[in-house]
């Protein structure tokens, strides 16, 4: 039986594979066999190391040596030098950009672990359906500490000092929010957890509730203690059955263990939590709309003030925070405000969870310290752009956010920088676009989302967004004029200026930010009736190149609308008036004779 003492790990991520990682692995294996070492040394392919910029990556265990930009030709040297002679191949080691020093051991490499998990600390580590595993990982210790050693005011001060800001999108300082609700007099108050995650592509709240429901329960209890509430409500969308189920189990267990209910941990503090279901309306993420929805009213926002902290659920002072915000609370109390404040940037402390999606290799959920750059997120953690395409833009902040271009790749991500760059943090959706994405269509896509999600209460959002969408449709169909581009801009500004709630006030952002950064794409649609990314169906034409067409009649036979004509063995022709641009001919043609014009 083979007993391996050394493993050579070769990155098999998409980026590295594109840089001949497969050949590298073959070469390494071959060399090992040549030396007769295949019973002691194993060559393995792994998932992405998250450092695609310097791929392909090779890691050798157990000494954790980390080689970067390894080419297939380097295989022999690695085996001969490192494996046989035990000497590291200096030239392939990673050079720390700050110190200019070569780093041999991956444990000491800055970039290696770009992610810091605070909100997601237990996700993927503990069994969410077993409260004891949560308790075993410091669970409910923060609540215990608050009840035993701190006054509500002291806890609030601690949260204020930590610099935690709301993770739902607005970035309002959490401690201040608690303090305001604490200071409002009221015989009855409520803690509400907003789990009505609605941004397209965002699922961090769902993942936290699925993976670590007790952290939210514990934080809500702490919040209740601070503001003087004995009742909490979780407003969760009914489309999250697993999260609901895990939350229910967790609530049951917390009650059973006496961590919810009367006189928690022997103190005078009582707290209970109920679940309320939302039907998944995006606008119900807005706190006043959320509260109306919980009260059984139409889920639409009302003018603030009064803020929920003064008059919220059932007219009582109510503190609303989102899931991720709550998940940060227990670690802050356990590890201290200074620890939390040491992570992040000056005005944005701690970490942020992002849902990486779009044209990126490592789609997934990541938690990074504030201040990380987009480049690190996209290339190091996200593994770069799919299929080796060019990065074009990243959309943050969901349908209320904006597109960030290549110019912002090195901007540190925090609340204020994103706003300055014309986008926003939002709840943490991050959708990456590549050269094949038409930015007019992207703007249209987001507007369709807002159109569906608008409650219809105020004129600018109800009718204005409809008009914006109509103009965008016109442009993507090649029927737009340059006047339409001006109208888009003017109407967008009025909608931002006059809408009732955050949804309408931000809905034109995707349009404005694409107008700012990709005006040429709009102009191409309007002036030349062409879509540079080749995405807008109405603007493209399938044409047959006479020279390449053999007259095989395959396209003619497959066209569903009979738009193709031509004699056998002579070039065929597509009637553009009949063509519905389904692309079947393009796929069927064996001679590459059909082009998209």
């Amino acid at each position, binding site marked *: 039986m083979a007993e391996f003492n050394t493993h050579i790990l070769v990155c098999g991520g998409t980026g590295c594979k594109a840089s001949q990682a497969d050949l590298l692995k073959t070469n390494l294996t071959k060399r090992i066999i040549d030396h007769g070492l295949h019973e002691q040394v194993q060559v393995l392919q792994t998932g992405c190391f998250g450092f695609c910029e310097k791929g392909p990556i090779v890691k050798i265990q157990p000494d954790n040596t980390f080689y970067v930009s390894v080419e297939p030709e380097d295989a022999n040297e690695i085996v001969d030098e490192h494996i046989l002679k035990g000497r590291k191949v200096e030239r392939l080691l990673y050079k720390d950009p700050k110190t200019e020093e070569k780093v041999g051991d991956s444990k000491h490499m800055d970039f290696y672990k770009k992610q810091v998990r605070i909100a997601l600390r237990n996700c993927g580590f503990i069994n969410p359906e077993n409260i004891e595993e949560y308790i075993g990982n410091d669970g409910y210790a923060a609540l215990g500490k608050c009840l035993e050693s701190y006054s509500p005011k002291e806890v609030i001060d601690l949260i204020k000092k930590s610099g935690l800001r709301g993770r739902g999108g607005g970035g309002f300082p959490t401690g201040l929010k608690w303090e305001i609700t604490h200071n409002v007099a009221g015989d009855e108050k409520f803690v509400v957890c907003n789990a009505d995650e609605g941004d397209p592509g965002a699922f961090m709240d769902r993942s936290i509730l699925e993976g670590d429901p007790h952290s939210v329960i514990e934080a809500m209890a702490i919040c209740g203690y601070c503001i003087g509430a004995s009742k909490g409500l979780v407003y969760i969308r009914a489309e999250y059955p697993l999260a609901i189920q895990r939350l229910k189990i967790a609530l049951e267990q917390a009650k059973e263990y006496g961590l919810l209910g009367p006189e928690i941990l022997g103190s005078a503090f009582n707290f209970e939590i109920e679940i309320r279901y939302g039907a998944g*309306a995006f606008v119900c993420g807005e706190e006043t709309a959320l509260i109306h929805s919980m009260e059984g009213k*139409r889920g*639409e926002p*009302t*003018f603030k*003030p009064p803020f929920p902290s003064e008059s919220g659920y059932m007219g009582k002072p109510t503190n609303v925070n989102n899931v991720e915000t709550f998940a940060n609370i227990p670690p802050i109390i356990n590890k201290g405000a200074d620890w939390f404040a040491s992570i992040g940037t000056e005005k944005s402390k701690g970490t942020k969870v992002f849902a990486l999606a779009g044209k990126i290799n490592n789609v997934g959920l990541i938690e990074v310290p504030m201040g990380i750059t987009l480049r690190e997120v996209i290339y190091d953690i996200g593994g770069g752009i799919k299929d080796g395409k060019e990065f074009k833009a990243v959309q943050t902040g969901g349908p209320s956010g904006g597109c960030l271009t290549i110019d912002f790749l090195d901007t540190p991500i925090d609340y204020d920088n994103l706003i300055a760059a014309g986008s926003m943090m939002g709840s943490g959706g991050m959708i990456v676009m590549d050269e094949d994405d038409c930015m007019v269509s992207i703007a249209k896509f987001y507007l369709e989302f807002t*159109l*569906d*999600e*608008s*409650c*219809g*209460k*105020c*004129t*600018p*959002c*109800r*009718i*204005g*967004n*409809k*008009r914006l969408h*109509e103009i965008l449709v016109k442009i993507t169909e090649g029927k737009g004029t340059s006047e339409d581009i001006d*109208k888009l801009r*003017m*109407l967008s500004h*009025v909608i*931002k*200026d*006059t*809408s*009732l709630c955050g949804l309408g*006030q931000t809905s034109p952002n995707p349009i404005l930010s694409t107008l700012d950064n990709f005006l040429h794409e709009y102009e191409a649609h309007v002036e030349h009736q062409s879509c540079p990314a080749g995405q807008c169906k109405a603007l493209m034409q399938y044409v047959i190149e006479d020279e390449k067409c053999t007259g095989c009649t395959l396209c003619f036979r497959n066209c569903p609308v009979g738009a193709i004509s031509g004699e056998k063995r002579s070039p065929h022709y597509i009637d553009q008036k009949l063509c519905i641009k389904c692309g079947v001919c393009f796929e069927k043609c064996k001679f590459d004779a059909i082009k998209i014009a």
Partner: protein
Amino acid sequence: MKKIKLNIDNKTLEVPKGTTILDAASVVGIDIPTLCHMKLHDMNIENKPGGCRVCVVEVKGRRNLAPACCTEVAEGMEISTHSMRAVNARRTVLELILSDHPSDCLVCAKSGKCDLQEMAQNMGIREIHYQGAQSHYREDTSPAIIRELDKCILCRRCETMCNKVQSVGVLSTINRGFEAVVSPAFEMNLDHSVCTYCGQCVAVCPTGALTEVDETGAVIRALSDPSKTVIVQTAPAVRAALGEEFEMEAGTLVTGKMVSALRRLGFDYVFDTDFAADLTIMEEGTELLNRLGKYLGGDKNVKMPILTSCCPAWVKFFEHQFPELKDIPSTARSPQQMFGAIAKTYFADKIEVKRENLVVVSIMPCVAKKYESSRDEFAVNGNPDVDYALTTRELASLINISNIDFKSLPEEDFDQPLGESTGAAVIFGTTGGVIEAAVRTAYEIQTGKSLPRLDFEELRGMEGLRKATIDFDGTPINIGIAHGLGNARQLLEQIKAGESEFHAIEIMSCPGGCIGGGGQPYHHGDVEILKKRQKAIYSEDKNKTLRKSHENPHIQKLYEEFLGAPMSEKAHHLLHTKYFDRS
């Protein structure tokens, strides 16, 4: 109260804390346009969704524009109501509304009285820059109200009236985004809903989305049919408001001009619903005294309090919402229906016209009266006691169609015998009036004494819920008054719970009573108009020689010649009714 100092359009002013920018601006004579906002001062009615966004103003230092109707002033605020940014935004928002609104103003029922039209005019909109898809909904016609939702601008005023004020809960916003629209649940028709047809939605609709069923055409046809004798009755509240339709000051009494206009329109007899109001008092007052007598005599089977039943929307309301209380209201028909029943029997016999050739038209401040006249129990062999019930607005339209210069008309008197009335009947037009009229008669019948005073100030006013105790010569009688169905609901809940202290309660559906009816000239949110109409009603009462219903000589004659006595079998058959469980 703390004062806030601020600056609006370069004018510095001080207003109490909590004042909105809109109200603060009006203090210094700045009239910020509004569309969805509506506030009936002193009546606790306010619609402030902040939805239309035409009232946006620029506040220095603020990121976006502020809606003046729901933004409270803050110390040191600097506001510009007509900066380029604000005006541009306001006009754009208005253009957006117009872009989703039919442009058939010339043939719209609301033309000339439409808030949206007026605003477009005032803002000088000459072009709609943002054109696109328009909403299309099916038209919903009920016995009284027509909903044309293509014209709805989602101001939500109707919703406020239907839910907050009337507590009927039929109209609410359904669907989302561009498809959002105000409708009964599941987009059902109004006549399948629990709508009471009170018409308060119609009264406040800023556009032509909600209007009454127009029966002027049918009336013109009847008037021109030589085989028909067409008679008309006019409700008390009409004469206090009709003048407004002809640019007369609110509160101008136009009884005489109205009579002469009706005569010129070709009505064969011009009568007064007030006559029937006196008759109502005879019946309802007698019923009250009967029940009261039994109750005070210790009869456990008699139910208290007795409730008035003149208001058809109120009747439909309790039939839907409180069917278990349906034996509490008086069984007396409303004056409109009493008039119809007497006209098509007593009067038809008198002038020897067959029932089917006699057409009874009523002029009402109300849209629910259209529904009431269509109820099956108020017809004989399919021939209704009242053929057509027109609103005050429809009458104005008829007058205009017939080339009558209303203002220059002479004042004329009603025809007899169904045109004679007392002051007690006139005050039926305002909240508190019916019960005051009942007290005047009931007191004298009960005590056999003459009333020392006729003006019961304690029963008057605009408070939504009022109560008073009247001394019936040693017997204290507790009287409750509610106008607005939301207020009525409170009293009904008390009765249901057995906690009611009242012997008699007057209920009117519309805030203010019939003077604020859904068929009256539009008040456009100005509560002063309602108050002036009320004042006019009381002054008409005061000027009458006869002010107690039982003193009306023609009523006395009617009983002598035809009915016998109040609550007689004949009276019961013609003047009383029964109620249905519609829950």
